[in-house]
């Protein structure tokens, strides 16, 4: 069984703390994404796990073997690089066979294993091609086959999809996931793309500025973000500073003296008057139909901006106290959009009001 255990991993480059006491446990056979904006330290962590960078301190264990200070060629870890890093002077066959030859396997076994690996990435028949004769997507598959052929105990993927065009990326996403499940190989996937992380992972680890913000299933992270950063990292959202106004069944947060929102979920141990961060995803803000009467329902405001973007439209609504809400709604064909400057009412379902504690 090969779990990956990282404990208090720390790395700085000069004055910059790139990874700050990062800990993580990846169970055998699971697919975990390290997700964060560029410069959050995710690739640094991956390179330390692969042995291409030395940590300042901390511990890395694969299975029951500590590998923290082992050189990369002793770790038996498969790594797929963002640039693929194929050997340009070797055929596809020799690329995939490279790791097997280092294990001193005999020629027949190498042939079988290369064949299996290429079949797994659906590239059988390309053995004699050179990398430069392949498309980007095919090169990516060769890189993957090369990494899995020596049967590593851990597979690391460093933004492997970011150099592909959008259509191919969607396809490879499912291929990668299928492959990972077929092999039941413990996998760490580094990405800055939230959608990739959400669709592919068993668990996601959200990072910012070298620190772990939240570790959980995609659903947990999306529905119950632990920090303001995680809350705002997914999708387009509105962020507000607020205070807790009521607890219990009628829990609510006030954004200003005039604006309060009901919420379905408060952070643990919250008290009335606590400063909190309120996140509302743009698609959660509903513009109420101006024709119907709503009484006190929702919040009144002025529509400042309307922009049509095909399937959706974006609105900017200014409510009492100068607070601005961005809203994104689906546009029905032939349905007129309200004019800028008109008075509107907006509402947000309590479940969509995400409240996170401010440290």
């Amino acid at each position, binding site marked *: 069984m090969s779990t990956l255990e990282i404990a208090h991993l720390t790395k700085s480059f000069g004055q910059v703390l790139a990874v700050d006491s990062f800990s993580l446990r990846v169970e055998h056979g699971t697919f975990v994404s390290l997700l964060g904006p560029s410069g959050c330290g995710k690739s640094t962590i991956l390179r330390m796990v692969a042995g291409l960078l030395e940590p300042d301190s901390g511990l890395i264990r694969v299975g029951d073997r500590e590998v923290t200070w082992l050189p990369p060629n002793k*770790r038996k870890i498969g790594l797929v690089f963002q640039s693929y890093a194929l050997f*340009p002077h070797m055929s596809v066959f020799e690329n995939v066979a490279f790791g097997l030859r280092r294990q001193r396997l005999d020629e027949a076994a190498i042939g079988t294993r290369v064949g299996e690996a290429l079949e797994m990435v659906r590239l059988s028949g390309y053995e004699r091609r050179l990398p430069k004769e392949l498309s980007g997507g095919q090169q990516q598959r060769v890189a993957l086959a090369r990494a899995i052929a020596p049967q590593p105990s851990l597979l690391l993927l460093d933004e492997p999809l970011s150099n592909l065009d959008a259509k191919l990326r969607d396809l490879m996403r499912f291929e990668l996931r299928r492959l990972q499940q077929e092999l039941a190989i413990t996998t760490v996937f580094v990405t800055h793309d939230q959608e990739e992380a959400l669709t592919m992972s068993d668990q996601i680890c959200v990072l910012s500025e070298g620190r772990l913000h939240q570790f959980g299933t995609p659903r947990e992270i999306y529905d119950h973000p632990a920090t303001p950063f995680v809350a705002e990292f997914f999708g387009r959202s509105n962020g507000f500073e607020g205070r807790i106004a009521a607890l219990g069944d009628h829990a609510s947060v006030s954004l200003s003296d005039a604006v309060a929102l009901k919420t379905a979920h408060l952070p643990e141990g919250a008290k009335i008057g606590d400063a909190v961060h309120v996140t509302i995803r743009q698609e959660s803000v509903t513009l109420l139909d101006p024709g119907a009467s709503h009484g006190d329902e929702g919040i009144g405001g002025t529509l400042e901006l309307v922009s049509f973007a095909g399937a959706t439209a974006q609105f900017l609504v200014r409510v009492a106290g100068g607070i601005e809400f961005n809203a994104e709604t689906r546009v029905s064909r032939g349905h007129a959009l309200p004019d800028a400057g008109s008075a509107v009412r907006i509402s947000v379902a309590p479940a969509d009001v995400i409240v996170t504690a401010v440290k």
Partner: protein
Amino acid sequence: MKAGGRGWLERSGLGLLSPSLLVLLAVFVAPLLFLVPTSLHPYVPGQGIGTRWTLENYTDILGDSFYLTIILRTLALGLIVAATTFVIGYPLAYFLARTRSRLRPWLIILVVFPLLLNLVVRSFGWIVLLANRGLVNDWLIALGVIEEPIKLLFNFTGLLIGLSHIFLPFMVLVLIGAIQNIPRDVENAALTLGASRLEVLTKITLPLSLPGILSGGILVFVLTISALVTPRLLGGPTYQVMSTLIFDEFLKVLNWPRGAAMAFVLTAIVLLLVWASARLAQRLATRR
């Protein structure tokens, strides 16, 4: 878009090439061609260039063991100097191509720095070091390594040491470029696949820098076999190579026909080797 002559001129890049092309034609190719008839006339002692047409200058050179020895010596010197600068220069170039040190630009200037010194001065420096009573022999004797001074000057060893030193920067500069073109991650990929550092070097880095090794080698080879000042100073008046021999024929013996013929033999060898290695480089680049 206008079709016709102008479009072709722009596409072929001839417009950009023409200034340097004209200079080369006027001051290099034309004088060389003027020497062709010279090499085909006999040398008449006391009179100069004869009027008869003959191939005897060429047959004399290629049939005489004295000349053949010098041709072979020159070619061997070129090959060994190219090999020596490669062996010494590759680790240095690898370090300079891969280092992240802030001193890197300065280190590269340090490599180029010897080129800023006068060639004669650098060659004289080696005479001081390599002479029978020079620094190297004195130290070796003082350390008890040898008892009698070893001959390091006015022979093959002297030329090899001096020329390798002088042409090392060219090799290093070409190799730095070649090694920088190899992505670091390609070497890292080999490491994660279980290759040792030595295997990364022999299976990845060296094969991928082969085009650079080849062009660096050709450059140093051509520079070596056409070098005049250093062989003259470190080889003395008696230990000859092609270039010093040609120089003597023209300016001491005044046998222009033979000098011209030797110059063409040297040029032919160079062109042949450059052509062959260009073919080789092309084959390496498009292998399989």
